[in-house]
């Protein structure tokens, strides 16, 4: 499992968010490994409003659909269109090319440091 980048923040629902403006959101390596081979991802459209802690999309893997939870309240300004044809990128590069959406943040929800998230999940730290 990939080490957790220290420059990101994390949620208990296994999403990450960076400090950019707009901010990039994805799922962690912990989640990507636990989901298995991702075959489909449903994401909001550009312009959609997200609410911190609320569902903003879904991923499908190994015959199971799982929900994605937004770490922020804000507006989607970009969606990773490449995932439509290559959802497996989330597995292979969850902290990089497998990003999900970029968001103009109104409010940041509850987040964790890499160390706190590693403690929560029992995974490797940064």
């Amino acid at each position, binding site marked *: 499992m990939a080490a957790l980048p220290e420059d990101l923040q994390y949620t208990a629902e296994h999403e990450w968010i960076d400090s950019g403006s707009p901010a990039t959101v994805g799922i962690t390596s912990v*989640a990507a490994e636990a989901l298995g081979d991702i075959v489909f991802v449903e994401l909001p459209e550009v312009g959609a409003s997200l609410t911190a802690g609320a569902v903003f999309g879904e991923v499908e*893997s190994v015959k199971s659909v799982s929900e994605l939870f937004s770490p922020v309240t804000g507006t989607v300004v970009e969606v990773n269109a490449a995932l439509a044809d290559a959802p497996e990128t989330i597995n292979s590069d969850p902290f990089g090319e497998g990003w999900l959406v970029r968001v103009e943040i109104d409010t940041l929800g509850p987040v964790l440091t890499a160390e706190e998230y590693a403690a929560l999940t029992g995974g490797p730290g940064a």
Partner: protein
Amino acid sequence: MELITLDLGTRLCDYEQTWELQRQIHAEVLAGERPDTVLLLEHAPVYTAGRRTNRADRPVDGTPVVDVDRGGKITWHGPGQLVAYPIVRLREPVDVVAYVRALEDAVLGLCADLGIAGERVEGRSGVWLPGPPDAKLAAIGCRVAKGVTMHGVALNASCDTGAFTRIVPCGLPGTVATSLTSLLGRHVGPTDVVDAFAAHLRTSLTPHLAAASGASPAAVRA
């Protein structure tokens, strides 16, 4: 974990009504108002399709299909098929792969009891009898919402597998469906295997649950 059979052997459950029941139980498990629950039942005949189902996989004769929010593509449910819907809170961090494998383990355990050499197939979920053609004995399609599961596993016990010939089951061309009855050469219906299957489900699922209860493995009648 509470195992509830919905009039198994005497009533065929309407799919959409049962789906609504799943949603109600899911909300109650999520709120901590009821224990982990597994529904065991037979459906009235119906095709259901996950959102990735291709148009070409659907019945060519216009037979109605219920579009559902589980994983997987298209399948059939109906008389003679034992369906299990575990609505359970998974241990954190949720491991979806392990959960699906646990459902497969329950079917494989029952297969072992019956002397059937069921197998997993790399890159697919469910339980198979190797071919050619590969024959599917049990199909799996789940949903995990806020750490609590829905939908589950469908085991072909004594069903007429001809219903699967009108679709591309699970979107996998060149595969067929089989049943316990076909494999054993004698009638094996859902009521014949429900208690053994319930016990295997309890054994395989318990390590993956946030909380485990110590109730008896036999299915509760409802």
